[in-house]
């Protein structure tokens, strides 16, 4: 009798201690995992900090009025500037977004408002997602074959064509998403007044989702402004200012690439300067977009 009691107590004690051991091990593993996650975040932030720091540190000394407006001089002297590159980027990206924005918005409107449940919208969505995932250099080759070989010259058109292909799917998806969050009651209010559907879309839903649509456009623009690879085989790059739409132009990313492959210290410092200008342009777009998004309470899906 006594012994069995003792045994029970012993057993209970053993059980308790193993459980305690287990739970302390559990806590340890838990702590390790938490620490790993924090470590990962740190790992991601260090590069961002370093990139911004280096670009500002090395880029600011290169900036001057001459640097921003002049044509590139001889590489060794470190004179001259990136004027044509800034101009070229603005022109190419500008034309690309003039092409891409209407097409993207219309496609987005179709998907969100008119498509219904037919199989087409699924197919369109799927292909536009796949299109987003295609390497830009492949699209660059397409631009080369379709436009450059047809016109017979590296040109602004070819560059804008490719950039617009990159931009369209982004605009489509964001437009569609932002139209979908417009509450149905808004549309129904329109219907109850007997307004035709196209007018409702144009004047009511599109207006409600305006900041979202704008976000999509800005997102697309900041993405294509930084593209380099497809520009190599479409606009080629030059040291001259814009001479015509059928002629090659320069672009900031291309200029950075060329400057970085030079063996001269002065070219590198110019490269940093150009990177600062580019990053400033892109970040400016992104920050504007954040503010627009926050003001309307619209959540932007991460650009894939």
């Amino acid at each position, binding site marked *: 009798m006594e012994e069995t009691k003792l045994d029970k107590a012993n057993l209970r004690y053993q059980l308790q201690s193993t459980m305690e051991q287990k739970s302390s091990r559990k806590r340890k593993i838990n702590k390790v995992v938490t620490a790993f996650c924090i470590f990962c975040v740190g790992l991601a932030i260090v590069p961002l900090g370093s990139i911004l720091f280096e670009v500002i540190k090395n880029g600011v000394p290169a900036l001057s009025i001459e640097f921003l407006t002049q044509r590139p001089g001889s590489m060794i002297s470190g004179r001259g500037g990136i004027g044509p590159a800034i101009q070229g980027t603005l022109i190419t990206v500008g034309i690309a977004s003039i092409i891409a924005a209407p097409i993207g918005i219309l496609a987005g409107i179709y998907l969100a408002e008119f498509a219904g449940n037919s199989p087409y919208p699924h197919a369109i969505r799927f292909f536009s997602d796949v299109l987003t995932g295609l390497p830009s250099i492949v699209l660059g080759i*397409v631009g080369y074959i379709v436009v450059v070989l047809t016109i017979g010259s590296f040109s602004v058109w070819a560059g804008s064509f490719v950039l617009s292909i990159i931009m369209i799917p982004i605009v489509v998806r964001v437009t569609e998403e932002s139209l979908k969050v417009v509450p149905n009651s808004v549309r129904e209010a329109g219907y109850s007044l007997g307004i035709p559907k196209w007018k409702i879309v144009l004047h009511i839903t599109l207006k409600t989702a305006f900041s979202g649509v704008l976000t999509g456009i800005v997102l697309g623009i900041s993405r294509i402004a930084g593209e380099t690879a497809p520009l190599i085989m479409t606009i080629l790059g030059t040291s001259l200012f814009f001479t015509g739409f059928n002629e090659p132009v320069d672009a900031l990313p291309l200029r950075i690439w060329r400057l970085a492959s030079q063996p001269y210290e002065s070219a590198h410092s110019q490269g940093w300067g150009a990177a600062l200008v580019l990053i400033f342009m892109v970040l400016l777009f992104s920050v504007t977009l954040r503010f627009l998004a926050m003001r309307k309470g619209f959540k932007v899906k991460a650009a894939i």
Partner: protein
Amino acid sequence: MLVIIVYAIGDGSIEIFSFEGLEFFTSTDWNAVYGRDAFGALPYIIGTLVTAAIAMTIGVPVSIGIAVFLSDIAPAKLSTPLSFVIELLAAVPSIVYGLWALFVFRFWIVGLIERPLYNAFGGSIPFFAKTPFGLDVFTAGIVLAIMIIPIISSISRELLKAVPDTQREAAYSLGATRWETLRIAVFPYVKSGLFGAAFLGLGRAVGETILVTMVIGNAVGISAIPTSLFSQSQTLSSVIANEFNEAASSLHLSALIGLGAVLFILTMAINIGGQLLVSRIVKISPGVKE
């Protein structure tokens, strides 16, 4: 649109496929000199796969760690600005990454990781052989990892957030720690979605051009097959970027377009796989919520 792309690439690469046939995929010889033309894509395919593999091994665990931190560990006050910062990383153009990698990061890698590894194992393990100086597959892989982290982690965060809280609460109520909750209640729920996110990141890593071109060392032909972690190489996209404007003969050009076709098929397959996996989880999740 896709039809135009397929047609253009197919049309442009016919010449090389009729010239090399299947050897285009298996040959390691790459010579553009007229009369000795030989174009084998194998080294570049291997280079692409190796850099992408390095990028994935580093990028995926880190991204998922970040996603878990943002969705499950950090308080809301911290996680909102942090996800903003990480999405900023996604907004940095790849050319700026390249510049940074070439002039700054390369020296960190050489000093902190490659030299110690080389000194310790260089003589004994061929994996770490070759004197490192930073322009190699290892650097390219790591910088690619840094570039795909924001993509994978922002998708994974969305996925983890889509897991209904009841799922977590059930596990907590059984006395599970946070890690156990994640392991038994959260990860199984979004497994295929996380795979899909990784696939999308992989598609990005395989197709990235300019960044890789700047740090991979640009070897040509047989020497582009990486024999160690620290050897120079070349990927499909970086060959195209390097040689496109210098292609002298139409055959050379066609060979480059052929590389583009290989790249196209590769990324198409990866992306479609990824899309299917991600969309499956998104479709499943509302059903389970009921």
